[in-house]
């Protein structure tokens, strides 16, 4: 994977910013969602307590993950579910394929699962001649366009209705130029309905897996997961192992937090429990590691595994809103994606923890209280230590460190050409002065504060009077 060439975040974001109207629209749409989240969160007096409780439940899960997984597997098997374990993306994909092969099925209907995005399942299955239809509207749109989703909850948020209309005209034969959302949704639904009726295998994600009962819960707004799973003979549910919660009674806490954080809704339209297969049908659960146990072992970053994928940190992130999800070149974009991605591949994703101002808004909205911006700061330290920074930057930083540690040199440098402005904040490692492209430089004053102080402070005056 490391050899894969990716466009660095800053470069992709620069491109995204070329279309000002689109950036504004992207920013405003997501801000609207963030405001809805605020409104509905602020209606719950115990909101902060709810977050704290969820956070602690997840801490408990992560500390005892081994036991909970064993418990979950045993209970799921008791219910007649077939449980598989996948160490990495490759194994996950192979397992899914083997189930399809066993049933000799060449078509699959899928309802939003970010895990399969993470594992690049669609590409893998396509190579094996299996056709996958993503059934959620947003997913369906990006799939038709051969793009990855740009947001974990709102996969097509980077597209305007004009774009969707174009795509549907091309692929579904809708009227050219008709941008009526009702019409477009209806057209997609009609085309999908046929898919649901004919697919024998349905794949869904998992929002919560309950150790105590061995059941899984899938939260959706469109109900496509249910449609797919209920009509198919085989239901494959794929989950990262961190999706576990200990008991059913804990579910209410997470359901209250999830939808409010994601979209500002009190609860998702459908919160479907799957516990045992109907007669003659099969349910498979694939439990995936794919780097999660490594992350669990990184003390500074293990908290990131508490994530329930609500997307709130993306909606609130001022950088995400102005750079678009694709600029993060990772299945999970935004602040949390920038923590998860380097765990999977440091060299490929070394830019992501720097795609943040560390403003901390993400940490505040996170329903499970992940210290997101602190983890981004910590990743920066790790990435520098592991040598994933350009050499020039390291040299510049070392020079700066020497100057700043020595007041005499600092003063001389300050006077001779205002060292600070040339080197701080971060004008290092830039042949052209990136500050000046769209900003004026500060005016250089007659004297620095310390020069003024030497002449005018009480101490200086007292000395003069001596």
């Amino acid at each position, binding site marked *: 994977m490391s050899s894969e060439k990716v466009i660095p975040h*800053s470069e992709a974001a620069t491109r995204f*910013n070329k279309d000002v109207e689109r950036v504004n629209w992207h920013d405003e749409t997501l801000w609207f969602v963030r405001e809805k989240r*605020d409104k509905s969160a602020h209606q719950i007096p115990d909101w902060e307590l709810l977050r704290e409780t969820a956070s602690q439940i997840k801490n408990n899960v992560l500390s005892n993950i081994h036991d909970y997984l064993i418990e979950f597997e045993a209970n799921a098997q008791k219910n007649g579910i077939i449980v598989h374990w996948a160490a990495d993306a490759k194994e996950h994909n192979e397992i899914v394929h083997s189930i399809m092969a066993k049933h000799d099925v060449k078509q699959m209907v899928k309802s939003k699962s970010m895990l399969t995005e993470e594992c690049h399942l669609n590409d893998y299955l396509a190579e094996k001649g299996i056709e996958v239809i993503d059934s959620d509207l947003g997913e369906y749109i990006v799939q038709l366009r051969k793009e990855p989703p740009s947001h974990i909850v709102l996969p097509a948020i980077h597209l305007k209705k004009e774009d969707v209309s174009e795509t549907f005209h091309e692929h579904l034969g809708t009227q050219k130029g008709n941008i009526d959302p009702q019409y477009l949704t209806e057209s997609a639904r009609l085309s999908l309905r046929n898919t649901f009726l004919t697919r024998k295998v349905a794949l869904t994600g998992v929002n919560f897996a309950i150790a105590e009962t061995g059941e899984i819960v899938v939260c959706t707004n469109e109900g496509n997961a249910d449609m797919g799973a209920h009509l198919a003979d085989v239901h494959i549910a794929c989950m990262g192992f961190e999706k576990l919660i200990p008991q059913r009674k804990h579910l209410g806490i997470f359901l209250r937090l999830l939808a409010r954080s994601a979209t500002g809704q009190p609860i998702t339209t459908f919160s479907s429990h799957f516990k045992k297969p109907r007669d003659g049908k099969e349910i498979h659960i694939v439990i995936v590691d794919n780097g999660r146990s490594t992350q669990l072992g990184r003390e500074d970053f293990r908290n990131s595994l508490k994530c329930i994928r609500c997307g709130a940190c993306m909606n609130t992130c001022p950088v995400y809103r102005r750079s678009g999800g694709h600029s993060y070149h990772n299945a999970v974009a935004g602040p949390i994606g920038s923590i998860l991605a380097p765990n999977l591949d440091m060299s490929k994703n070394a830019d992501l923890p720097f795609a943040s101002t560390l*403003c901390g808004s993400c940490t*505040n909205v996170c329903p499970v209280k992940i210290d997101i911006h602190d983890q981004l700061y910590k990743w920066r330290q790790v990435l520098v230590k592991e040598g994933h920074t350009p050499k020039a930057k390291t040299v510049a930083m070392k020079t700066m*460190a020497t100057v700043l540690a020595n007041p005499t040199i600092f003063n001389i440098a300050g006077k001779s050409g205002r060292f*600070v402005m040339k080197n701080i*904040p971060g004008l290092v490692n830039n042949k052209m002065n990136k500050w000046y492209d769209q*900003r004026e430089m500060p005016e250089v004053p007659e004297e620095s*504060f310390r020069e003024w102080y030497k002449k005018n402070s009480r101490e200086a005056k007292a000395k003069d009077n001596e």
Partner: protein
Amino acid sequence: MKIGLFIPCYVDQFYPKVGIATYELLQKLGCEVHFPMGQTCCGQPMANSGYQYLTKGCDANFIANFAGFDYIVCPSGSCVLHVKEHLHDEKQEEVAAEMRKKVFELTEFITDILKVDTIEGNFPYRVGMHVSCHGQRGLKLSQMTELNAPFFSKPEQLLHNIKGLDLVSLSRKDECCGFGGTFCVTEEAVSVKMGQDRIKDHENHHVDYITGGDMSCLMHLEGILKRQKSPIKTIHIAEILNSLEN
């Protein structure tokens, strides 16, 4: 009460007026203020770029300069937060730990330590407050919109008795301006866009001035305002609080 005045490197070099206002204001409030001449930079630009391991020299220099003061006060939430969270010295860890507790941002020092509720002054303009992230979310100088908790604002509270000052309420109260230290150049496109959007909010509310507690954010906004030839000016809150003639 002996105060060590901590003036961030770029304020020293580019915004001496902010240093002077802070110095004079603290004196007016009855403090004995000293500026240790050997101070340079808190090391944040390096640390936030991932080079915290290179800040040992800065840390040692900071400690050498500020040891012995009752409090260390600074007109920048961001630099204070850095010191509070990251000042260490293997050789004298106890001293470092003590200093992490003694360092304060200017407005929180005035409200929490000096227990001053508001300050008299005169600034007859329409003013928008740029709430800087590190001060607000890091030091908790004011309530954050994301949390479900009652409103408060230490800097705003101090402005209440400034004559003529008309503080506007922005649409996005505490959105980041996009400065972010080295972020402002490494992610130039996004940084500038964020700054422009921040300014737009102030423009929509017809402000004469944008104020705040962090000169670095204001420097970034000022750079954009000047490029846009905007009549809106930036001013550090210390300058407003020090607006009454001695």
